[in-house]
């Protein structure tokens, strides 16, 4: 019994760590503070006057202004979706660092998945063809193997 328990102990430990991590994530996700929301929204918006930097990363005056505007909107009780929509309305979907999962944005999400599926299918077909080829030996193969084993031909 002790040996069996000892075998399960690492798994139980792993399960406990997973459960605690999940609990922490869920607890934090339930009620992000206003500053967390400002940070998260700023991370999702492109700084309009920078080269591929988020509003959260950039130290430019425009990024400062957008962070201040987001903070004002959060304080005024606007939802994350409303704030994001206001920026899309103002700048276009270009302002979002994560492409939307609709319209043209779908291609960005779908193309890697399609490539993965097609690649996996190709790989599976190649493996199957290789396995099938291995199973069938030609008469020449049989004769060669037989000769090596010292069996008489024919």
């Amino acid at each position, binding site marked *: 019994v002790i040996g069996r328990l000892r075998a399960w102990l690492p798994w139980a430990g792993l399960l406990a760590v997973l459960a605690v991590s999940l609990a922490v994530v869920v607890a934090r996700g339930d009620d992000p503070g206003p500053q967390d929301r400002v940070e998260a929204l700023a991370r999702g918006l492109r700084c*309009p*006057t920078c080269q591929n930097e988020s509003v959260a990363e950039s130290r*430019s*005056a*425009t990024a*400062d*202004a*957008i962070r*201040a*505007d987001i903070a004002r909107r959060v304080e005024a009780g606007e939802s994350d979706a409303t704030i994001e929509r206001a920026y899309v*309305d*103002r*700048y*276009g*979907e*270009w*302002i979002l660092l994560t492409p939307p999962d609709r319209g*043209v944005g779908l*291609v*960005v999400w779908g*193309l890697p998945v399609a*490539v993965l599926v*097609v690649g996996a299918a*190709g790989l599976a077909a*190649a493996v199957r063809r290789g396995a099938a080829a291995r199973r069938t030996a030609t008469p020449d193969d049989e004769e060669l193997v037989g000769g090596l084993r010292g069996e008489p031909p024919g």
Partner: protein
Amino acid sequence: MKRPTRLAAVGVGACVLVLAVVLALQVDNDPSFASGRLLGRPAPVFAGPDLAGGTIDSRDLAGKVVFVNFWNDWCIPCRQEAPALQAFWEAHRDEPDFAMVGIVRDVRSERDLRDYAFEEGVAWPVMFDPGGRAAVDFATTGQPESFMIDARGVVVGFQSGPASLDDLEAMLAAARGEIEP
């Protein structure tokens, strides 16, 4: 060409084609077009301290055609645009239905800005934009950027980059309904 090679070539070709279409569709998402999204929409309200020590509030300009130009003293294209702005201001400054406001964004040194404005004879009202609120409300992506607002308060003209005097006159004529925008 063997079948797997042909299939791979077709696959790669299809991916390139899809990406080309996606990129082509994204052309109008270029940031330089961003502020143009305001065309046909009500202009954002703006207010702030001005260079002369007073304040400017767009609500006080209601009923006028208002030309708004985002600029600053360290921006080379803004300096290139300055003579056209000067000529435009001189031509229309006394017209009662016209107002012009330069909004300075990303000011690095207020003293340098004042020196530049004095030396270059920037005579039109210039507003500071503390916190960059007006620059964000107008969805600007740099400077110079210009907006023409008609008497109803609707944005009817937009120019990204230095405007010529002809550009400015055309925007004003469109705002007054003299020509199609």
